């Protein structure tokens, strides 16, 4: 285990500016996590890219105890879960939040839970949080909550954060919304995140990997399709609604950008799993959604050539779709 004091913040930031980065050890750590996942009776693998630990502030959730959540996810066939912390929403001591998340995943997850720390770029010295997550906790994916932390995606600090993630080869998950605005506690209304500014950052950082969580209600399909053509943008299944939603989604963005993500335990896990059965998808698509795309997102192994954006069939589909949607 890495000594948490072995890399100072000065050394960390210095290594970034010099172009050196710790991709080797962190990738190894992630590989160890997935390699050590528990074997289930079936032959399939299922990576849930959108899970939370700890308590949702607004109601008691049955599976909020980590041991219970791990048990229920494993029973449902999940082989690896990327876990963020619900404490991130309202707590201001993000360093402690990330430390508890890391420890909880270590204690209960046994390699099954992969912690996704939170960065709040509105906080002073947030780069130290970033360093701790990447250096000390070996996190490969970090999660942002712009709506709850009170910033928009066009501010310079977001650019700094994404530049750092780009440099460090860290995947960034952006939570677009956590609740239907019609159902929020009236004392804490939080609007969905406006994603338009991401286009600029994706052009500035062409290898940056972003995953939009719970984006499907707030981000129109044509906007999603546009973002996906600009850069490495992925989505989860959270808040994907309408019958056969995956069939419709795959007509807008390539299947290679869709990852299984349940938003459990805030949402019933089964709601996400059932989506896989509700749509008829081309052969092999389920494996792509269930684990291959998540591995690509976290390992930086593009499934097809980056140059040109997408395979021809998708380019055509997307162009037609964008033209028809005005």
């Amino acid at each position, binding site marked *: 285990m890495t000594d948490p004091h072995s890399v100072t913040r000065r050394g960390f930031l210095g290594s970034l500016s010099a172009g050196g980065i710790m991709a080797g050890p962190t990738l190894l750590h992630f590989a160890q996590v997935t390699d050590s996942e528990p074997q289930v009776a*079936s*032959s*399939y693998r299922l990576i849930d890219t959108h899970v939370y630990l700890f308590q949702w502030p607004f*109601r*008691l*959730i*049955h*599976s909020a105890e980590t041991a219970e959540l791990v048990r229920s996810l494993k*029973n*449902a*066939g999940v082989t690896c879960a990327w876990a963020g912390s619900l404490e991130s929403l309202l707590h201001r001591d993000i360093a402690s939040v990330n430390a508890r998340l890391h420890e909880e995943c270590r204690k209960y997850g046994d390699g099954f839970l992969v912690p996704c720390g939170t960065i709040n770029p509105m906080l002073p010295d947030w780069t130290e949080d970033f360093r701790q997550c990447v250096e000390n906790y070996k996190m490969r994916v970090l999660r942002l909550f712009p709506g709850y932390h009170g910033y928009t995606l066009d501010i310079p600090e977001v650019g700094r954060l994404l530049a750092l993630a780009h440099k460090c080869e860290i995947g960034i998950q952006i939570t677009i919304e956590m*609740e*239907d*605005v*019609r*159902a*929020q*506690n*009236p004392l804490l*209304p939080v609007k969905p995140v406006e994603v338009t500014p991401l286009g600029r950052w994706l052009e500035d950082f062409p290898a940056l990997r972003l995953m939009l969580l719970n984006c499907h209600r707030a981000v129109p399909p044509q906007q999603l399709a546009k973002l996906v053509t600009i850069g490495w943008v992925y989505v989860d299944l959270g*808040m*994907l*609604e*309408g*019958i*056969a*939603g995956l069939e419709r989604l795959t007509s807008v963005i390539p299947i290679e950008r869709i990852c299984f993500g349940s938003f*459990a*335990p*805030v*949402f*019933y*896990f*089964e*709601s*996400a*799993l*059932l*989506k*896989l*059965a*509700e749509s*008829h998808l081309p*052969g092999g698509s*389920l*494996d792509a959604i*269930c684990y291959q795309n998540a591995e690509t997102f976290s390992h930086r192994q593009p499934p097809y050539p980056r140059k040109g954006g997408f395979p021809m069939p998708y380019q055509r589909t997307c162009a037609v779709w964008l033209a028809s949607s005005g």
Partner: protein
Amino acid sequence: MDFSPRLADIKQRLFPFPLEIWDGHTHLLGLPGKTPEERLERLLECASRLGIGRVCVFMGTKWQFDPTPEELREANEEVRRAVERFPTRAFGFVYVNPNHQVASLNEIRRHVRDGPMVGVKLWVARRCCDSALDPIVALAHDCDAVVLQHTWIKTTGNLPGESTPHDLACLARRHPDAVFIAAHSGGGNWEIGLRAFCETPNVYAELSGSDPTSGFTEMAMRLLGPRRVIFGSDAPGRSFATQLGKVLGASVDDDTKRLILADNLKKLLAPILKKKGVPV
């Protein structure tokens, strides 16, 4: 069925025991198809993938908050055409508007008393605590039809004519012999909505049309008991999957799931279905 091994595995995990599923809340709007029949066919195709055998459907292919008598007639004709194509799998509810009482009563006579439909659907034209609904409820009850009323509590504010669960409880107390289904049970603010029905045993809480937030089904069960909770999806606007997950993912026993997913609705509709010769 052409299930891949992965899909078969998923289904085995989600349906470890045989389940009959009736969906109490679906629509035709938003489905592909040139005719209402084609739209319903598509809906049933997707429903079948998740084991949903029967659906209740209402409100045609165009929606208006405050439909005119002509718009009501058109919407109900569309639904009738569709359900007559699938008489054992799809059950129509007649859409009415208390702002047009005479037209609404005529629609109930045409499609429920003298036609194949089995329920009455009320949406957002007028809050349901209003006395304008009384003749509609009385006629529905005479026909053995259930009354399904949209109910939401929106943090951002309800529409002027949009009912809350409290409005429905008020109506239900005036008609203790009629049977009501509280569509959405208050929607995303279900913690408040469900409480409204504790003292109205003739109201059944329906789970459709909100995000699959954990705890909804468990709280409905706790407050109302297993026999007053009904599964509904609000498809195609909502996903069968997300809504079914509310029940399959709930921490309730398998017998309760069976009641919620089919038996409770079946029991409500059985008298009128039997009168119309539909096998239950």
